[in-house]
């Protein structure tokens, strides 16, 4: 195939598919009880310098319990997949855990405005944007990895600077003769995903949109599942069509009810806008970031303690009613500036 153009972005988390098959060959195929604490999971599976990606989308179904634990354990020099990375990347970057990021979407909180903290870190060069992507391109990189392919052809990125700053290539399609964009596979070192329920082996169900978690789970070298609840293995077998992630893809299972807070867990609880608002307000300054982390991350031992601190059962019940449209939305940022 004739190469017509090449992006100048850094190629990361790419392996020859044969090399990845060797990795997969070493993975167990048997049912193993994979339960552990979040502390154990992060300490065992996240290493300084790792390439990490989070499941979910923006503020939806993100494993926040993991994010806080990565910060608490002071992991450093991580590379982050900025695939609609919003609250997760903002806090991780602000806390100094991330030194490189590949960006499809980052540094923004959608309607709530831009992220003061991670923008500050990026604009001062402490965290480096190493490549640019679109949302579709990024998730197709995971699809390529999941399929055991070196790349996947797409019709996005073409003709733009987003392509120039990516690590994709444009070639002449041998069938149509037209230019087509090849996005390289992305095999993250470690992926964290929050799900509605799974069994002790990791067979996981997700309610509502899957976003790109089907592909991402299959692209990951290591996959840690945090879950709202652990269910009986028999329940999985009764309704096997509900399994989005089969057990052998999973390295650890951590039960963390409300583990996505302050994000939205579809059908269970809505965004905690009060808390997100507090972060957006505090993170305007370095001191504010420290104040937030001291209070909500370093100042607590467990996720239960954190939940108490953000408002306890009263707040959590409010977020559950809000999700079921039985409450009015309160958001301190309403009336703020729209800039996306």
């Amino acid at each position, binding site marked *: 195939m004739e190469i017509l153009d090449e992006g100048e972005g850094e190629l990361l988390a790419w392996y020859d598919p044969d090399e990845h098959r060797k990795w997969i060959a070493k993975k167990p195929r048997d049912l193993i009880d994979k339960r552990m604490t979040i502390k154990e999971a992060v300490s065992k599976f996240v290493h300084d310098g790792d390439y990490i990606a989070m499941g979910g989308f923006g503020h939806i179904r993100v494993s926040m319990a993991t994010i806080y634990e990565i910060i608490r354990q002071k992991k450093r020099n991580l590379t982050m997949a900025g695939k609609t990375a919003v609250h997760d990347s903002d806090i991780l970057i602000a806390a100094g855990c991330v030194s490189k990021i590949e960006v499809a979407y980052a540094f923004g909180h959608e309607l709530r405005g831009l992220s003061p903290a991670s923008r500050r870190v990026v604009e001062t060069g402490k965290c480096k944007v190493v490549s640019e992507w679109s949302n*579709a391109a990024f998730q197709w990189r995971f699809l390529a990895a999941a399929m055991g392919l070196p790349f996947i052809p797409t019709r996005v990125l073409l003709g733009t600077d987003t392509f120039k700053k990516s690590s994709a290539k444009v070639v002449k399609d041998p069938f149509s003769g037209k230019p087509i964009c090849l996005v390289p596979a992305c095999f993250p070192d470690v992926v964290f995903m929050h799900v509605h329920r799974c069994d002790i082996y990791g067979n996981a169900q997700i309610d509502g949109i899957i976003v790109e978690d089907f592909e991402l789970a299959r692209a990951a070298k290591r996959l840690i599942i945090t879950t709202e609840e652990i269910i009986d293995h028999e329940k999985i077998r009764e309704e096997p069509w509900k399994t989005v992630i089969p057990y052998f893809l999973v390295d650890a299972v951590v039960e963390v009810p409300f583990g996505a807070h302050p994000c939205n867990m*579809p059908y269970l609880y809505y965004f905690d806008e009060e808390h997100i608002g507090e972060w957006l307000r505090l993170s305007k300054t370095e001191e504010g970031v420290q104040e937030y982390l001291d209070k909500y991350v370093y100042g607590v031992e467990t996720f239960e303690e954190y939940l108490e601190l953000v408002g306890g059962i009263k707040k959590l019940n409010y977020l559950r009613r809000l999700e079921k449209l039985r409450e009015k939305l309160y958001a301190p940022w309403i009336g703020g500036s729209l800039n*996306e």
Partner: protein
Amino acid sequence: MSEVKYSTIELMACVAARILEDRKSVFVGTGLPMIAAMLAQRTHAPNLLIVFEAGGIGPQIPVLPISVGDSRTFYRAVAASSMHDVMMLAQAGWIDYGFLGAAQIDMYGNINTTVIGPWEKPKVRLPGSGGANDVGSLCNRTIILMRQDARRFVERVNYITTPGYLTGPGAREKAGLPEGSGPYRVITQLGVYGFDEETKRMKLLSVHPGVTIDDIKVNSQFEILIPEEISTTEPPTKEELKILHEIDPTGIVLRK
């Protein structure tokens, strides 16, 4: 006839809604596009198929979603699917309209939402493409909603995040983008623009009430094509305003 009072943002929402046709599909982003699509559904386009990039397909949106992935985007939907699903549908040609925002735009409708200043040393780092490059590449017609001033309507964008007509006629197809796709309308606080068939350059279609041609020109670095006949944008009706505020009762978007 009694004067109906309205804000610029309400006017922009109404203009965007009116462009959307019944029995067509639209890719919707956060904020104003969501309001516009919901307004269209509740007025002239009840069969408008709304699709969200995170996987929501054909929802009956109960209240204004905050995120393009939040649970309201697949409330009573026909499918709660995945990004791969909706993006491949868009790539195959299923999505008729798509909305985009922009920090900067040029005369060919190329859009920057990535960076102000040099990419290596940004003056302001913006969120990047998100789904914008996908929408701008894959939807048949894109509608751009943005504020207009001479810093945003620029001769050259700092960075092309999302393709418009690139360097002019034929450039999209030459780059490998789907045939016949591209920017369709630009809606700002001053007027509504389309793109000239032949040159693919931005041209004025209508000015909002109270706006002069001079306002249009002063607020753009590049020359906007001005046809001889220019209409005035129809202001929002009372009915449209009523529905808008039912959609966004707390003013999440409308009060901005």
